């Protein structure tokens, strides 16, 4: 389990991460999503012990991470800009990581390279961006660490590779003690694989929740009421995130379960009412909009 408590990090004038507290449970997939510059990468760099938090604590299985080799042996971090030794081949990199990760599985690595059709003796600097990402994932899986941090790793992979990598993750999750933390902008993709999601914005955490729970607790409702008075009372009862009106049609985003919301609305016998759950992408947009990250401000 990873617990971050009141973690803050400044770079000069800039506060990259501001008082974040997160719990990442073992054996679950944690999805880290956030606006650009929200502090996702900084958080992962602190969690993997590359950076030291200015204040607050990050504990991995109760142990501090920073400058703690025995804990760091359980973490594999795939940064967004991956580093490979100059002129190295995949085989060289496997040798390099073997020195640091005692349980690195080189037999499996060779086998997976073959499956992914990556040549073990080709120089990595001749690889495409996506092939480098594939290689990093394979190295990360074969390092057999308990924690695997992926910083936008999925975003550079083609659709077939993304399915393949998710499938590999699914296998690892059901076979061993494996806890991936995935930062990504591809929310559609995260919906498949994450148990738990944290939304970051401007250095702070907006919400962290079980993904299904998150999805079952915010809905989009389109409804028409019989008259303005009933509409006002009905909307007053609901926990509105956002409300728009076109003609007599209300388009509202509401917190709460489908049952709760519809029970409230139906007491007013609306002319029309339809409810749909939000996708993760829509949740992300509506949650960041509430704190002022509004698409309308960007395009008008």
């Amino acid at each position, binding site marked *: 389990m990873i617990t971050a408590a009141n973690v803050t990090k400044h770079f000069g004038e800039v506060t990259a991460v501001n008082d974040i507290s997160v719990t990442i449970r073992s*054996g*679950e*997939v944690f999805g880290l999503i956030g606006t650009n510059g929200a502090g996702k990468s900084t958080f992962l760099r602190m969690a993997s012990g590359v950076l030291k938090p200015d204040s607050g604590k990050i504990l991995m299985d109760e142990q501090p991470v920073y400058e703690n080799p025995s804990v760091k042996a359980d973490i594999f971090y795939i940064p967004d800009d991956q580093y490979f030794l100059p002129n190295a081949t995949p085989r060289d990199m496997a040798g390099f990581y073997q020195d640091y990760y005692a349980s690195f599985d080189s037999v499996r690595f060779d086998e997976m390279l073959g499956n992914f059709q990556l040549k073990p003796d080709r120089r990595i600097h001749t690889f495409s961006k996506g092939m480098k990402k594939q290689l990093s994932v394979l190295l990360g899986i074969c390092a057999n660490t308990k924690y695997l941090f992926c910083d936008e790793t999925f975003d550079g992979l083609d659709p077939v590779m993304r*399915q*393949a990598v*998710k*499938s*590999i993750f*699914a*296998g690892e*999750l*059901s*076979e061993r003690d494996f806890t991936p933390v995935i930062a990504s902008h591809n929310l*559609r993709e995260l*919906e*498949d*694989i*994450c*148990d738990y999601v944290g939304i970051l914005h401007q250095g702070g955490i907006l919400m962290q929740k079980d993904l*299904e729970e998150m*999805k*079952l607790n915010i809905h989009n409702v389109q409804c028409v009421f019989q008259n303005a008075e009933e509409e006002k009372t009905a909307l007053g009862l609901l926990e509105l995130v956002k409300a728009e009106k076109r003609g007599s049609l209300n388009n509202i985003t509401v917190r709460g379960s489908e049952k709760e919301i519809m029970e409230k609305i139906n007491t007013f016998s609306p002319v029309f009412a339809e409810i*749909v*759950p*939000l*996708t993760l992408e829509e949740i992300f947009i509506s949650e960041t909009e509430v704190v002022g990250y509004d698409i309308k401000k960007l395009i008008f």
Partner: protein
Amino acid sequence: MILIDHKDRRPIYEQIIERFQQMILCGAMQPNASMPSVRSLAMELSLNPNTIQRAYQELERAGYIYTIKGKGSFVSDTAAAAAHKRQEIQREMQVTVDKALLSGITAEELPEILTACIQNSSVLINRGSMKGELT
């Protein structure tokens, strides 16, 4: 065997539950047939094993499958589940019938509509064409 519709807004585990329920109730999966293992289904669909586990737990709770420790999950005898599903469908049809009567359709017209629905059912049409291919 299971197809996930990513445009469907319901949680993925609900889709898995529904699909297995359909297959079990229509007899595509016979009682005591073994369910795919959580691991293999998770890998096949590239989904989180916890999601599959959740769907299986729900199916077990609703009596569609049973689990033998160390052996996996199996399809239950589904007479009770089928009766339950029948009630659920009847409730849904009741809602539609009420809606129809409220929209000015008369009680006499309703059987006609039902007959038309049965004739147009893609389930029956597909079944018919499958039989056609076999013969």
